[in-house]
């Protein structure tokens, strides 16, 4: 079942108290494949694995419905550095 890009965006912002979210539909519009960038203070002090688990858990139902899901997770501080680089 396809997921709407905007709905996924809103869900990630809400569930992860995200400062910034980017959702890229990599499925050519069929809504089955997404890449997301999430910036949240919730990631502070967590390993990649812990961050990804947090994201996975927050949109469990949605991930189960799509074919591909790829994520990049940053704390606000890491994101600021990333933007400067």
């Amino acid at each position, binding site marked *: 079942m396809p997921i709407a890009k905007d709905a996924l965006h809103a869900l990630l912002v809400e569930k992860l108290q995200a400062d910034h979210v980017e959702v890229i539909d990599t499925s050519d519009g069929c809504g089955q494949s997404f890449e997301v960038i999430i910036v949240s203070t919730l990631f502070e002090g967590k390993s*990649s*694995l812990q961050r*990804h*688990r947090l994201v*996975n858990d927050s949109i*469990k139902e949605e*991930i*189960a419905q799509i074919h*591909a*899901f*790829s*994520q*990049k997770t940053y704390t606000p501080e890491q994101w600021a550095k990333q933007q400067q680089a």
Partner: protein
Amino acid sequence: MFRTAFRQVATPVLRTQTVAWRRFLSDDLRSQIDKAVKDHDVLVFMKGNKEQPQCGFSRAVVQILQANGVDDFKTVNVLADEKVRSGIKEYSNWPTIPQVYVKGEFVGGCDIIMGMHQSGELQQFLENEGILPKEEGAKQ
């Protein structure tokens, strides 16, 4: 041998997708996965195999491991058995394939392995786990 072991316990596949996924991981399958991840230092649950990955994410993980000098890792093709495909997701509480296990521990999927590779953390990790020799350039 891993795959044939699963075939022996094969039962008719449930087609009620919404209900079925949580129930795929029987005690029997769990103990088989337990054994497999412990028996192989590096085990990758993927779509296809090393020679012919059937998904870009699986291909990426295989290539990253090889680029880091890990050649003799074991793979399980989840497309060969729907119960394994669903069961492994429940086993690791991880929703996507591929999944990389090192010394019995779940390390991550494609994004995490890729991130670790790019930061150099993967090489370090593999050395610390004894998968790769410590000395730089020791691998021929």
